[in-house]
């Protein structure tokens, strides 16, 4: 049923596309349609504006406990870094001779923190935290950077509303920027 529906779609699409100088190639009838449930289960992408952040919430206090148990071993008790990256500090250092790139000093969008922690952290057990736990750890890391107060509770709206200090710090690629060799 689903494949016959696709064939109809293909036929309908083929007519205007043929006129439009073969914008799309032929269809091969391979694969099967993905269901919305399957997509929802696999799609963990969070956009920079946080529109796709999931339900749930977590507090700085909860994040502090989780961080000590699951993150501090690599990132240090206060996010100062260890075998894992430094997460805290470096504010105002980016244009200096010794820039320190951290969540607080460099990351432009707070929802990206949720995206990355959920998909890839902790390094030894990624995708093991619940959404509430990811909100909590995100809240704690942001708190360590002085970006949310000690009593903060973050959910989708609250996380998306945080304006990161380096939000406007990124520019497009201007290369080629070094035109010819000299000396």
């Amino acid at each position, binding site marked *: 049923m689903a494949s016959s529906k696709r064939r109809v779609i293909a036929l309908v699409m083929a007519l205007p596309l043929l006129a439009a100088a073969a914008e799309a190639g032929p*269809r091969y009838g391979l694969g099967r349609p*993905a269901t919305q449930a399957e997509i929802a289960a696999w799609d963990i*992408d969070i*956009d920079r504006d946080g529109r796709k952040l999931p339900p749930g919430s977590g507090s700085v206090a909860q994040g502090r406990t989780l961080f000590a148990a699951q993150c501090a071993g690599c990132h240090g008790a206060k996010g100062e870094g260890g075998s894992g990256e430094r997460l805290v500090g470096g504010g105002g250092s980016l244009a200096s001779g010794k820039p320190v790139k951290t969540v607080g000093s460099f990351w432009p969008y707070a929802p990206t923190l949720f995206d*990355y922690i959920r998909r890839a952290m902790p390094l030894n057990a990624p995708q093991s935290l619940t959404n509430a736990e990811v909100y909590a750890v995100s809240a704690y890391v942001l708190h360590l950077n002085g970006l949310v107060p000690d009593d903060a509770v973050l959910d989708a709206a609250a996380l998306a509303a945080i304006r990161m200090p380096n939000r406007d710090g990124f520019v497009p690629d201007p290369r080629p920027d070094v*035109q010819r060799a000299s000396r």
Partner: protein
Amino acid sequence: MSDARKDRAGLASPHRRRLLGQGAALVGGALAGSTARAVAADDANAPPSIPDWMRAPGADVGSEPYGTPSRYERRLIRNIPKNLPQYISASSRTPLQDLDGIITPNGLFYERHHGGIPEIDPSQHRLMIHGLVETPLILSMDEIRRFPSESQIYFLECSGNPGFEAMSGRTASDLVGLVSCSEWTGVRLRTVLEEAGLKSEARWVVAEGADAAAMTRSLPIAKCLDDAMLVYSQNGERLRPQQGYPLRVLLPGYEGNMSVKWLRRLNVTAEPAYSREETSKYTDLMPDGTARQFTFVMEAKSIITRPSGTQRIARGFNEITGLAWSGHGRIRTVEVSVDDGRSWTEAQLQAPVLTRALTRFRLPWTWDGTPTTILSRATDETGYVQPYFADLTAIRGTKSFYHNNAIIPWRIAASGEVTNGFVKA
């Protein structure tokens, strides 16, 4: 002749033969005077001896079901950093200085993993395509291999190869070993995206790996509809686990991180994901504190691989050879300087010279024993010329880490010893 052979054959012990060989070498040395090579035990199988490996049959056909290099090549391995705090997110380098031609053997292809190397059962692997498409699709590996296929030779290079503050490597591999080149086989990404049907708002494709990092990069739609591939084979065999088995993206000429390995999902979107890997990482910090974002293309670059760091050359004829490549297309010329950049000579390019592939260059050279520094400089088909390190850093500073394509100098001492010209002698 037959007497000599019989005598040698009568010496059952290889040890005795070696002793005898040494004696012969000493006699020969005395006769030939100072020009004799100081080789003794190594000559046991040289003339006039009959080599040991001719005196008995070798190993059986099929004694190695999957062939491996000679035992005498066991030192030829990936360049793996020592004493890292962890090896889950790290890199290893191709030993460029010990390879010939342009194709990297699969076992020596550079590695950069962010969550280790997953062991994926291809029968259970699925590719999901969703987002701004007419029909979201799930494809098995068998189905992906049924699409029209193609094979292309492309280089792949990590964008930090090396960082601007990591110029003190001893070997060519230490410096730019995060580049390799393969013949890739797969299906055009465009073909697979069109199977799902792109909606008119589609501008980016967010690719995600099935590794423990769930590596995510946003690929611009123009590249996806141009030469981008979904790859399942490399140099004729299925991808190695380290290169994304069973399926990866391949974006010719773009920074390696974008060619997402272990590909499981393509989310067609109107905007980039702004993932951690395209904000916090893989952005290039400038001296003014801004960071360049979506710096995709690997610009033209070259390196002399022989003679190169830790090697030693002799006076007389030496072939200078190396590799050049550009993410913008074909290599047009490679110039070599044997006088530290005062003059340049155009090198020979070994055919085929392919777009976005490694290109082998060669220059015959006779070294007179004078200490010097040798350099190579690539120009690609756009006319872009590989810059000096000083020219790059004058604009970008030394904190941008990625996209360092500087000219690499090799210093040659009076002894013939070759060392990194960036390191003070």
